[in-house]
Every structure is written in C-alpha cells, then in structure tokens.
C-alpha cells in the first residue's frame, strides 16, 4: 500500500511560507495564577499553512497556553494574532477568520445537527438570517467530517464522538469562505474519537493547511503529532522543552524528560516520520 505523506517534504525546519507574516506570534509569554507559575517564557510562532502541535503531559500547561492564545486568559508577554495584539481585533471580524474547537462542548438542547453547524456561520450573518450559501457551507462541512447523512438528526441522540465531529464541522463552517489569513485552534480534538476519526481530524487539518489556514492543535498522542505536524512544541512544567520538526523534537531524551517514560524512536516503516514506541 502506497503511503502518502501529508506534510510538505523536508525534515529540518521547513517553514514553507517563511516570508509570510506569522499568524500567531508568542514572545516571552508567562502566566501565573495564585502564585503558581503555569507558563514561563513561551516563544512560538505559526505561519500560513502550517500545522503546529503542542504536546506535553497533563498539567504541563498546554491548555493554559491555548487559552492565552485565544484570549480567554492573558498573562505577561506578547501574544499577537494576525500581526496584532488580541485586544486590537474586533470580536466579530476575528471570529470570521479564527475558529476555536474546545475539548468538550456541552450542549443540552436538542438542535438538529445542521443547526449546530450553522452556529458557525453566525459571525458571517447580517440580521440573524442564514443564506443559502451558509446552508451549503454547513452541508459541505458535515460532508467533510463524514456526517452528511446526520444533518436532520437530533444532536442529543448522537454519541460523544459524533457530537465532537459535529463541532468540528461547526468550526470548519466558521472559517469557510473567509478571504485572507485564517487560523484554527484545536484543544485535544481527538480525545473522544475512535482511531479512524482521530486521523480524519488531522487529515482535515492538513487539508486546511493546504488551503493556507494555520492550525495549532493540542494533542496527547505523540504519534499523531509526529505523523501530521510541521512543527511540534513539547511543553514540560510550563516551559518549552523542545520546539521544531517532529524528527528534531521527538527524541527519546525529550520524551523521557517531558513524560517521565522510556521510549524508543524509530523511523516509521512506511511514513516519513518518527515512530515513538514504549521501551519498557
């Protein structure tokens, strides 16, 4: 079986759009709460069409970092999105080009699945009315996550994994049709999904990257990160332990330091990426 590499070829930091301005630029970000430092001197950047994956064990500061980038939290240091600080953006205009998928979304009302996806079109709508284009985009987004036949189903009758994919379709719909730079932030998007759908989410992320969207994802699974990411940032104790291509970052030493577990890293037998397996 021929294997497809989802990434632009090249170990060594590829930065395919190095000349483009960064979609996310984080400089010297620190965040502490109640005297406890959760993030320290974080430096990150994300270019157009790039997939950056943040990994680290629980409590390493992954979600805190993501929340500092979405604006839910704000620490010391500089966080720029689309070349401007977060406060400088109009919320509605920002929402048309930046979508965020939370780890868990609680929705306890029985909307039809398509209505949930259409919520992603809210920032694009004038006078609260959805257009035929909005509905077309919603259907296309559902098709991309493989739920096109679920459009009229009651959201509450879906399994947890299906609900998570509906929300993925919602953020896809949110970014659809926007001109210019776009950004997708995913907080452990694969946590409640079966294997095939975990890969579906990351393949979709790569498709978006190919359209020029910058994607930042927090992931638990090192091999998913390795297979799909352009760059990986390993967080440990609120600091960036390693930052670069999967080959340069996902080494036994780094993984041991970050996760406290012995691993072996081998070349993936059929994909051009490192494969991390437990050594003990």
């Amino acid at each position, binding site marked *: 079986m021929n294997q497809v590499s989802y990434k632009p070829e090249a170990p060594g930091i590829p930065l395919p759009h190095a000349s483009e301005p960064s979609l996310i630029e984080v400089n010297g970000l620190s965040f502490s709460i109640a005297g406890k430092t959760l993030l320290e001197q974080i430096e990150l950047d994300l270019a157009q069409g790039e997939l950056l994956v943040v990994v680290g064990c629980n409590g390493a500061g992954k979600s805190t970092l993501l929340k500092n980038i*979405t*604006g*839910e939290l704000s620490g010391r240091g500089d966080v720029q999105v689309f070349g401007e600080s977060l406060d400088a953006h109009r*919320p*509605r*205009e*920002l*929402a*048309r080009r*930046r*979508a*965020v998928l*939370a780890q868990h*979304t*609680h*929705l*306890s*009302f*029985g*909307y*039809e699945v*398509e*209505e949930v996806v259409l*919520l*992603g079109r*809210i*920032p694009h*709508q004038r006078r*609260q009315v959805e257009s035929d284009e909005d*509905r*077309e985009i919603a*259907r*296309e987004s559902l*098709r991309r996550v493989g739920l*096109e036949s679920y*459009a*009229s189903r009651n959201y*509450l009758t879906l399994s947890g994994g299906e609900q998570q994919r509906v929300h993925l379709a919602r953020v896809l719909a*949110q970014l659809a049709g926007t001109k210019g730079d776009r950004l997708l932030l995913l907080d452990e998007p694969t946590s409640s999904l079966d294997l095939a759908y975990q890969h579906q989410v990351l393949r979709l992320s790569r498709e978006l990257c190919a359209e020029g969207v910058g994607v930042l994802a927090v992931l638990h699974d090192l091999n998913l990160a390795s297979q799909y990411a352009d760059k990986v940032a390993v967080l440990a104790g609120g600091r960036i332990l390693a930052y670069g291509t999967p080959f340069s970052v996902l080494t036994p030493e780094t993984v041991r330091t970050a996760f406290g577990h012995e691993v072996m890293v081998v070349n993936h037998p059929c994909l051009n990426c490192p494969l991390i397996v437990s050594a003990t």
Partner: protein
Amino acid sequence: MSTASTVAPTHASATRRRRARAFAILVPVLLVSAIAAIGTGAVEISPLQVISILLTNLGVEPIVEFTSLQERVLHAIRLPRVVLGALVGSALAVSGAAMQGLFRNPLADPGLLGISSGASLAATASIVIGFHALGNFSLPIAAFFGSLITTTLIYMLAQDRGRVNVTTMLLAGIAINALCGAITGLFVYMASDDELRTITFWQMGSLGSATWRMVGAAAPFLLACSLIMPFMANALNALLLGEQNARHLGIPVDAVKWLIIIVVAFGVGAGVAVSGMIGFVGLVVPHLIRLWLGPNHRALIPAAALLGAILLINADLIARTIVTPAELPIGIVTALVGAPFFLYLLLQGRKTGRLI
C-alpha cells in the same frame, strides 16, 4: 460543493416550513382567542359585533349592529384586559425562554428563580411606603429594579467559572423566593387593612384591575421585552454552547448577558407590577414550543411570545368566567396547569438524565 448540492436533502427547508406553518396557526389562534375573550362576560358581545365595534373605531362600516352598552363595555373593560393579558403573557413567555437560554437550562423560570418575587417585593414596598414620585410608572419602575437586582444576584450565584451550576441556581432561587417572601411579609404586616387586601389579591395574580392607564404605563416595558428579545436569538443560540464558545463566535457575551438580564427585568417587573405573580407561563410555554419547533431561538422566541399571549388570554377567560360572578386569581389557573407540568418535566428529566 457540487456533490453536496445534487444530493441536497431539503430537511432544512422542511424545518423552515414547519416553523412557517406554526406561525400560520398561532397568529389566527391568538386573534380568535382575543375576540372570544373580548366577547365573553356578563354583557355578551358576539364575535361579529366585536369586529364591528373595532372596525367602527377605525372608521370602517360595521358588519352587524351593536348597542352602545356593548361598545362601552368593550372599550372600558374587556379590551384593556385582553390587551394587557396578551402583553403580559408574551413578556413572561419570552423572559422564560431567554432565561433558559442564558442559564442553559430548561428549568430556569422567572418565578422559580425568584425574579418575580423580587419584583413583587419592590412593588409591595412601593405601595406600603407610598412611592408615587414617578406617577403611573412608579409601580412598574419599582418592580423593574426589584427584578433586576434578583436576576443579577441569581446569575452571579449560579455562575461558577463560566458554567452554570443548576443545583445552586435552583437552591438560590428557593432562598431568594423565601427572603423576598419574608421581607414582603414584613411590609404586609405594616400595611393597612385596605392595602392588605389589595396586596394579597394582587400577589395571586389578576388582570382584573386592567385599565387603559395601567396598560399605558406597562406596555412600553412589556413591549420592550417582547420586541427586543428576538434580536438576541443568535446570541442565545451561541450562548447554549457555553460562554467561551459564544465569544469565539464573535458574540459580545458580557454586553449580551446584561442586555438580556435588563430586558427580562423590564418584562417580568412590569408584568408583576400590573398583574401580580403569574407563575409557570415562562416555564411551560417555551417548553411546549421547543417540543413543537425545536430549541432554535429564532423560532422559539417569537412563537413563545404568541403562545404566551394565547395562554394568558385564555387563562384569564377561565379565571373570570368559571366562578361568575366572582373571579379566580389568574395565578391560580396558571399554577393549576403549570405546576403538574413542571413535575412532569422533572420526571422526564429523571428518565433521560437531561434536564438537571
């Protein structure tokens, strides 16, 4: 895109057709209810006569004959009462729908959460203290501030780091109801016999004292509630995903929350000021509409406004005809229908584990 459009299942348009059909049913039912309620009472006025009297006012030739007694009864007694019932009913139903969206829970109801008793406390206090500084508007304004304070209080109590804690919400509602009830009791204790009778009857809820002056004083607040809230529909839909998700969709969450709280306080405050505590409308009506049309606030809010008006007009019709020549407080009628319905919701919720 092309594959998607060739398949193009039109269920979305089916949903829209169902909603359009719902409005095509609700509007005529509201009109028929209003005409029936206007015509029923000690002085009978037939539906055609009701229409004829109203047409005459607009300068159109009447269809059938009517007496001047009928005309005077219609103008002085029936019409203000029906108009007030419709306005209060839609404001209460819309407020209930909005609170349920804001709290992300179908059990949130202005009565259960203590918002109505906050309004009632402020209104009672203003009667006993004799606050008339704002003329006709004194009572509605006092009730508005009463409900604004309790709504804000309960929202702050029920919020826990961006999540709504339902147990806290309902318990805080019980506490606020008890506290407002106790303080209202203190005022009642201080009241004269005359004030006492007015207060007691008014607290059970009645549209019996409806006059055009009263309609004029309350209508701006009640209409503000029913007419502003539909514009909050998308924001409420987004808020059901949680506050952070709503922010990520570009909704100015804090501004929207405050606007909803203020508009609810307008509606509930004015409703309580003119008709006392009318419970369960805000709970039952939005729930019925959700069963019928789904939870989307774009349909839910206007449909709840119509059904709330229909429900209250008919509840008032029952209240004033079932024990003629006496009158039941309308709050008793809505509670007799609403309380069992609420228990039914709790049972359903226990079965599906969804409501709480």
